[in-house]
């Protein structure tokens, strides 16, 4: 009887885990296809999105990439870097304010930070467009950047806040007890501890910005970012080189995430010891 129950329990446990892994595997199927298609030779039939023949060419000859793609990637990288920089600085400051300081209007601030994450992109994008048009502000690089900083901010604040509020202030107290000044304590103790959260937030901001389509498409004027290039290419036939960019992005991001995770673990081990 007992044996039967254990057996059933074992099956129950592993069934759920197995189903969970199956769901996870399903989320990776399209990524596998992106990787696969980056090796696809579709020089003859571009309008059919189908695997034809294996080739290294898409990876090896960036010079022969589709017209305008390299420019769009470069534009997306520049915007994502700038948006990440500004959003990470403003967001980190705001996160410190919300976790470490008490002031009137905190709940209003929290609400305004929450709302962009819960609004449909199409509504945010069209609101911004209405603002720019009514003020006669020319659409282009700067309007894309402004929009990206806006929607990255909330995600940065939430991510850094999570790290900061999970922090025990024992170490800071110890530093102060050992006569460290406030700024010494901040730069030598607090900041290094929060850093993995900030790096994670910056990475999130970068991928959100690099990948954004709906808001960007409304506020871009004549500029074409990488997602806009892919969207436009869909109508003419997708050049396989876009999958090279997709695959490279994926590999680089995963490497950074793992690096950050290892850094966080080392830190925790060092603290525990």
């Amino acid at each position, binding site marked *: 009887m007992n044996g039967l129950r254990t057996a059933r329990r074992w099956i129950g446990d592993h069934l759920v885990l197995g189903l969970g892994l199956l769901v*996870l595997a399903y989320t990776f199927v399209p990524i596998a296809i992106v990787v696969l298609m980056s090796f696809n030779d579709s020089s003859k039939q571009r309008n059919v999105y189908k695997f034809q023949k294996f080739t290294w060419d898409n990876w090896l000859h960036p010079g022969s990439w589709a017209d305008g793609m390299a420019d769009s990637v470069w534009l997306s990288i520049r915007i994502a870097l700038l948006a990440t920089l500004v959003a990470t600085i403003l967001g980190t400051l705001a996160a410190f304010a919300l976790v470490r300081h008490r002031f009137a209007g905190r709940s209003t601030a929290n609400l305004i930070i929450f709302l962009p994450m819960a609004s449909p992109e199409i509504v945010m994008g069209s609101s911004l467009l*209405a603002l720019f048009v009514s003020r006669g502000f020319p659409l282009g690089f700067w309007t894309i950047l402004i929009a990206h900083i806006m929607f990255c901010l909330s995600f940065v604040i939430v991510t850094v806040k999570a790290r900061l509020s999970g922090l025990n202030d024992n170490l800071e107290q110890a530093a102060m007890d050992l006569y460290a000044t406030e700024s010494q304590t901040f730069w030598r103790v607090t900041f290094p501890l929060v850093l993995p959260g900030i790096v994670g937030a910056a990475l999130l901001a970068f991928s959100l910005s690099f990948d954004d389509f709906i808001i960007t498409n409304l506020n871009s004027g004549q500029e074409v970012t990488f997602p806009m290039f892919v969207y436009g290419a869909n109508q003419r036939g997708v050049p396989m080189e876009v999958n090279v960019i997709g695959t490279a992005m994926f590999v680089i991001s995963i490497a950074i995430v793992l690096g950050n995770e290892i850094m966080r673990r080392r830190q925790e081990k060092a603290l525990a010891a």
Partner: protein
Amino acid sequence: MATLDDVAAPQRRTKRKLTGYWLILPGALWLLVFFVIPFYSLVASSLFDPDGSVLTGYDMTWHFGNYWDAFNQYKGQLGRSLLYAGIATAVCLVVGYVLAYAIAFKAGRWKNLMLVLVIAPFFTSFLLRTLSWKLILADDGWVVGVAQAIHLTDALNIVGLTTTDDRLLATPFAVIAGLTYNFLPFMVLPLYASLEKVDFRLIEAAGDLYASPMRGFFKVTFPLSLPGVVAGTLLTFIPAAGDYVNAQLLGSTNTKMIGNSIQSLFTTQLDYATAGALSVILMVIIVAAVMAYVRTAGTEELV
């Protein structure tokens, strides 16, 4: 506890208070100017005289008729958006719950890795991943073959999710499949956060009191994870209802969602008045739905 703080209190407290304001000021201003104020511009543009154009300029005529016209003209797309997003959210809830449950209770030391894998799809382009579904659901692909063999295509055709019985691409089914796939992580993460807080001993207690695993789940685990269910459904439903990329890449002209209309009114037809009105209508419907839902689900601590 008397500390140095108390001695230096009056001076320090005011200084601290101001520091808080200074720290949050730049970010808050950014959101105020580029998130809050634009809503005002949007509402204003929705009341423009519909006879204006971008070139001649719009007159503010408080033309509330825009709303009625926009609603009548686009109610099909509005209904479709809510329906597709609703179905996608329901499927995400079931599928996402399994994954979140597995990570929270069964993953053991692989928990962190699995969580990273949940968000990993975000690291490659959303548009490219959506395009992949074109290939997966292609007419001569094996997915269509299998679906036909098990008569799934017939079933889908009967309930109206596909238009013919031999293809999946360019049908409502494809759009919903795309939405489900793209927004799944938004469901899994809040569900996981909620499940992780559940005290496992309570579930064991249910078992000890002779509740079957099913009963234990529905009477204990699920109610305790309700905040995650509410947050997850909202974070999935809201972006899905406004999305038009899936409808554009995987659907046909008969599967256009409200986002498609708003986008083309703004960027190609340059009809700012109707586009503005549609955006406001979408926002109002979503806010109303969210408030009704949160009230029924009874989760106050959401924000």
